[in-house]
């Protein structure tokens, strides 16, 4: 753990902070898209039979 008297890790420049935010947004979108893709593929593979089951 870093104490208050010691440097608090790397200090990012404004440009680095902006780039990191852009990378984080891109990773979030990619993960979201991947989850959606797996969901849609699952439904497509199961077919209409997925709705045809006893409740």
């Amino acid at each position, binding site marked *: 753990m870093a104490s208050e008297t010691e440097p608090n890790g790397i200090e990012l420049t404004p440009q680095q902070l902006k780039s990191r935010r852009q990378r984080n947004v891109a990773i979030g979108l990619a993960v979201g898209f991947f989850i959606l893709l797996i969901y*849609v593929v699952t439904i497509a593979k199961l077919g209409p039979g997925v709705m045809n089951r006893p409740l």
Partner: protein
Amino acid sequence: MSYIGESRSIAPALTGSEANPSDYIALLKPRVMSLVIFTALTGILLAPQGVNPVIGFASLLAIAVGAGASGALNMWYEADIDAIMSRTRKRPIPSGRVTAEEALGFGLTLAFLSVITLGVVANWLAAALLAFTIFFYVVIYTMWLKRSTPQNIVIGGAAGAFPPIVAYAAVTGDISLSSIVLFAIIFLWTPPHFWALALVKSEDYRRAGVPMMPNVKGASHTRLEILLYSLVLAPAGVLPWILGFASIAYGLLAIVLGGAFIVFAVRVYRVRAGGEADRCAKSLFGFSILYLFLLFAEIVIERSFSLGLALLARLGG
């Protein structure tokens, strides 16, 4: 004692990154990816029984990401060469925007995800073929052949030719003669395509120490090999029509384009000096891209049309 303080002292490179998402997209070699998507789409459409569009799209995406992962791993390994060559020195690693380690992690992660995704979405034959394609491009071509033999792009060209076979396997679970023919066309197309570029950029390759054909066997021998490969490629391009999985319209297009390819190759063979020789090589390079694009586009159009007719017939009946 701070762990962060310790890590700073032993890892001076840990200074934050200004890499944008666009730098990571550049690592995927988007232009190569677009060619892979196009040739893989052709392989998918060759499937005789048609394909579920969702499974087809997901398979295509997995193959494209696998190709992108190969590109990232290629850039990781070739950063030293890329820094020397004018064509590649602005890539993310030599320009300092992305570190080699970041590119390695990015490439390995995408390679793993693409293979697993294709296995789950389609089948494990296609996943194994995709894994082999990535291995072939990164290890056999990039790490071994590229720096050791002037036949580098001849054998390495197989990696670029695999996507139609992988895509066909993804939607059928099988390998067919038609997908092997598409493989053969791309395989035979690769040497004259890259050697036309190498003739113009031979000084770049010489400085980088890459044993391309013009640097090792000379420009005259390269021109002869370009012509010989063109003479084999032109009839190979007609095979889809002869074997019956493309129409006569495709056959006529392939004959005309194959003839033009040979004419461009003859010009490269005959004009050997000065700026005119460079122009001939650049013309062949440009035409070779058009050649492959038009042949595969014709198959995509024909197959889409017949699949559309089959769908209409099913809806009508």
